[in-house]
C-alpha cells in the first residue's frame, strides 16, 4: 500500500519536476475554491509524509479535531479500497503515533498560540514535527509579516509547512507570475504553489511555482476525486 500511495501521490508533481520536496524551512501552498477538496488533498499529502515516517502536525483553523480525524479515516479507507488491500493496523498505528491534530475554533488561531502549543508538544511529548499542515487559515486577512513569522518557525523547527488557501470564482485575476488571489501578493514566501481545480475531464492539480526552477511550472496531473491520488499513473 505504501508503495502504491507514494508512487501515485500528488507530490509526484514536484518530484517529476524538481526531484525534491520542500525540505526543512520550506513553505508550500495549495490553492483551491471552496468545496473542491483542499483539506482532502492536503491530507493525502500528509499521508504521504506519514508513510515516509515523518512526524506531522495538522493545524486546523475553524474545524474541530473530530472532523479532521474523520477526514483522515475516510481518505485512508478510500486509499485502502483503491489499493484493494485489507485495512492494516500497522498503518493506522503509524498514523496515530506520528500525527497530532491541533485545532483552533471560534477565531482562536494566532501564531504565538501555535508556537506555545508546539513548545508544549516538544517539552511534554518530545514531539517535534517534520511537516506542518496549516488548513483553513484566512489568507485574505493574514498580513504578509505573519508568513515571514511562519518561515522563521519552519526554519527553527527544521520542518516544512504546507498551507491551504481559499480562492474565489469571482476573483480570477492573477499576478504577473501567474499566481491567483489570495496568494498573488505573498507568492515570494512560498517555494511551491499548487492549484487544485476542476476542469473538463476531471480534477486537476497544477504546479504554479516550483522553487526557483521554472521548468516544472505549468505541469498538471489529474487526480482521482475520491482518493486524491494521481489518476493517470
Amino acid at each position, binding site marked *: 500500500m505504501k508503495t502504491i500511495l507514494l508512487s501515485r501521490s500528488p507530490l509526484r508533481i514536484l518530484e517529476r519536476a524538481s526531484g525534491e520536496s520542500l525540505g526543512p524551512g520550506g513553505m508550500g501552498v495549495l490553492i483551491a475554491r471552496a468545496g473542491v477538496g483542499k483539506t482532502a488533498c492536503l491530507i493525502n499529502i500528509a499521508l504521504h509524509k506519514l508513510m515516509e515516517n515523518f512526524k506531522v502536525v495538522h493545524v486546523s483553523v475553524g474545524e474541530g479535531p473530530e472532523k479532521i480525524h474523520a477526514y483522515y479515516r475516510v481518505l485512508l479507507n478510500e486509499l485502502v479500497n483503491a489499493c484493494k488491500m485489507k485495512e492494516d493496523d500497522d498503518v493506522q498505528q503509524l498514523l496515530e503515533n506520528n500525527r497530532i491534530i*491541533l485545532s483552533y475554533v471560534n477565531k482562536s488561531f494566532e501564531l504565538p498560540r501555535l508556537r506555545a502549543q508546539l513548545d508544549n508538544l516538544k517539552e511534554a511529548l518530545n514531539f517535534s514535527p517534520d511537516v506542518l499542515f496549516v488548513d483553513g487559515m484566512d489568507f485574505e486577512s493574514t498580513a504578509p509579516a505573519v508568513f515571514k513569522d511562519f518561515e522563521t518557525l519552519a526554519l527553527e523547527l527544521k520542518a516544512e509547512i504546507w498551507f491551504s488557501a481559499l480562492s474565489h470564482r469571482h476573483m480570477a485575476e492573477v499576478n504577473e507570475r501567474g499566481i491567483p488571489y489570495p496568494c498573488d501578493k505573498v507568492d515570494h514566501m512560498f517555494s511551491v504553489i499548487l492549484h487544485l481545480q476542476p476542469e473538463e475531464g476531471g480534477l486537476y492539480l497544477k504546479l504554479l511555482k516550483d522553487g526557483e526552477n521554472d521548468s516544472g511550472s505549468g505541469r498538471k496531473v489529474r487526480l482521482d476525486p475520491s482518493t486524491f491520488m494521481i489518476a493517470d499513473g
Partner: protein
Amino acid sequence: MSEGIKVKRNIGISAHIDSGKTTLTERILFYTKRIHAMHEVRGKDGVGATMDSMELERERGITISSAATHCEWAGHQINVIDTPGHVDFTIEVERALRVMDGAVLILCAVAGVQSQSITVDRQMNRYKVPRIAFINKCDRSGADPLKVAGQLRSKLNHNPVLMQIPIGSENTMKGVVDLVSMKALYFEGSSGETLTLKDIPGELVEKAAARREELIDAASMFSDELMEAALEDHVTEQVLIDAVRKGTISRELTPVFMGSAYKNIGVQCVLDGVVRYLPSPAEVENVAFDLAADETEIVLEPDPEKPLVALAFKLEVTPYGQLTYLRIYQGRIKKGDDMFISRSGKKIKVGRLVRMHADEMEEIEQAEAGGIVALFGVDCHSGDTFTDGSVNYSMSSMFVPEPVISLSVTPVDTKSQNNMAKALNRFTKEDPTFKTYVDNESGDTIISGMGELHLDVYLERMKREFKATVVTGMPQVAYREAITGKASFDYTHKKQTGGSGQFGRVAGFIEPLDEGVYEFINEVKGGAIPTEFIPAVDKGFRSCLDKGGLVGYPITGVKITVNDGKAHSVDSSEMAFSQAAVGAFRSVYMKAAPVLLEPIMRVAVESPTEFQGNVMGSITQRRGMITSTMEDGLFTTVEAEVPLAEMFGYATHLRSLTQGKAEFTMEFSRYAKVPESLAEELKTRLREKAKGEKK
C-alpha cells in the same frame, strides 16, 4: 403544531455550588405559587428547600439528583430541572442537560466566575443550551455585578448584555432598573412578591441610558428591524425583546439579570427572562435514531399528532413506587394509552400520569410534545425511549459499552446486605453502564462501571440513600486475553471408568478474530463428527472463553475452525465432545501466542490554555498518546488515549495541576496489547493475586 408548545419552557438552573441555585429555585416556586412558604437550603426550620429531594442533598446543602418541577408564569408553563452543580456527578448532569431547552446560569456577585461555573458552562456549550445569566448575591459585601458580567465575556467567552442595572449596592441594594422598559423595579411585601414600577432614580438616569444604548447595539446585530428602529430612535419594547430572544436562542447573546434571591430581589425578572428569551421546545432540534433503519438519525417534530417519542431521563424511588420522569419529544401520552419501550419491546399501560413538583404531585389526564411528566409503576431503565409502537426510535444509541473497572463490595452486616441488594437493583436500572455480579470463585459481589468516579458516586449513594455500609476492595481493571497467532489442535477425549465411556476427537485450528469476541466455524466433512454433536463442540469452546490460560482473564477475538474429528458409536455423547473441545482449547491456547489486553480510554481534558503544558505532561506520564488538541477561546481541550490502569487518581492529580480549573471526561475506546515491557511484570503480579484470592 400545537399553539400550546410555544408557551412551554424546559429549563435548567445551573451553577457553582453555593451560588444560590436552590434558593433561587425555591423563590421561583414561591412566586409561581407552587409553594406557599420558603425554606432555606440549610433550613433552620429543618424542612429544607423543596427541590433538594434527596437526604444527602439536604444535609450537605448541595444538589445531587435532578428533580423536575412544573410551574406557570405569565401564561407560560415552565418545567424547572434542577441540575447538579458538582462536576463529578456527570451522568446526572448529562441527563439533565439532555432534556432542557434553555438554562439560567447563576453566578455569585462576590466570587464571580469560578472554576465550576466554567465547567458547568462548558457542559452547556457541549449540549448547545441557550442561557440567560443571573448574578446572585448582589446584596453581599464586596458584590460587583458589573465586574462579574465582564467575566462572562473574558472567562466564558459569552457575549453578555446587561438587561438591568442595580439600584444601590451591596446591603443597600433596593431593586433594579429594567433597561427594556426603562423603569425602576422594586420588590416589596414581606417576601418581595409585590413588584412596584417607578421612575428611574435621578442619579441613575444617565447610566441607564448609556447601558440601554449598549443593549440596543448588541441586540441590533440580530434584527434589522431593531437596527432601523434604533436609527429612527423609535425602539419599542417588543422589537428589542424579539432581537434579544433571537441572539439568545442562537447562543450569540447572553442576557444578564441581577439581584439577590435570598433578599427576594430580581427573581421575577429572571422568570420574565425565561419566558421572553429562552426557546420553547418547538425552537430546539431533537433527533432520535431509527432502529428499524440502521440507527439513521431522525429529526423529531414537537407535534402532538405525530407518533409518540419520549425519553425516561430519571427514575426515583418514592413511598408509592418507582417514579419515572419522561420528556415527551413528539406525540402525546394519555392515561390508559399503551406505550412500548424501544430497548426491550415491552408494552406498558399508562396508569397514573403526574406532573411533579419536587416531592408533591399533580395528577393529569394527558401530556403533549415538549412536556415533562412522571409516570408511576413503570418498570424501565433510565435512558429508555418510549414510543406508541408505530415507530421504532431510540433517543440514544443502543450501544452500551462494557464496564472497564470493577471492585468488590462486602456488606458489613445483614441489614446492609439487604439494603445493598436493593441499591444495586436500583442502580442497574438507572444506569446501563453500571453492572453487578457475584464472582463465582471468591463469592464477592462485584460492581463494575466506566471509571473510578463513576463507581464512587454509586458507593456514596449506597451509603447515604440506602443505608448500606460496605467495605470495598481495590479497583480492578478489566484486562482481557487474546491470541496473536494461528495454531492447530487435534485432541481426543477418552475416558473409561466402568459403564459407558466417553469418547470424542476434535481437530482444527484457532486464529485471531478481527472483530467480535468469538466465532465458530464448522468445516467437518463426511460426518467425522456427527452433526448432532457440533453444537456441543461449539459450547465446549465457548465455555473456555471466560478464563484465559495466560493469567485468567476473559478471552476476546478468537476464531475456531473445526475440520476433523472422530466419534464412537457407543461412547460418544454431547458431554464427551464438549469435554474434547475444552481439552483441545487448553492444549492449543498457549501455542497461539496469547497476549494481555488492557482497556484504553479516550480522555478529553478541558482546561484554561495556560495549563496546557501541565495537562500534556500528565497524560504522557500515564502512557497516554495525545491525538489532538482544540483551542476555543481561553480554553484548550487535549484529547488522548490513555490506558485505564494509569488513570486511577487522575482527577485529584489534575485538580492540583490546574488549580481545580480543568475537567476531564473519559470513555472506553478499545482494548490494546499491554506493551511488552510491562506485560511480564503485570502477568506475574496478576497471577500472584489470583493465587492469593484462591487461598
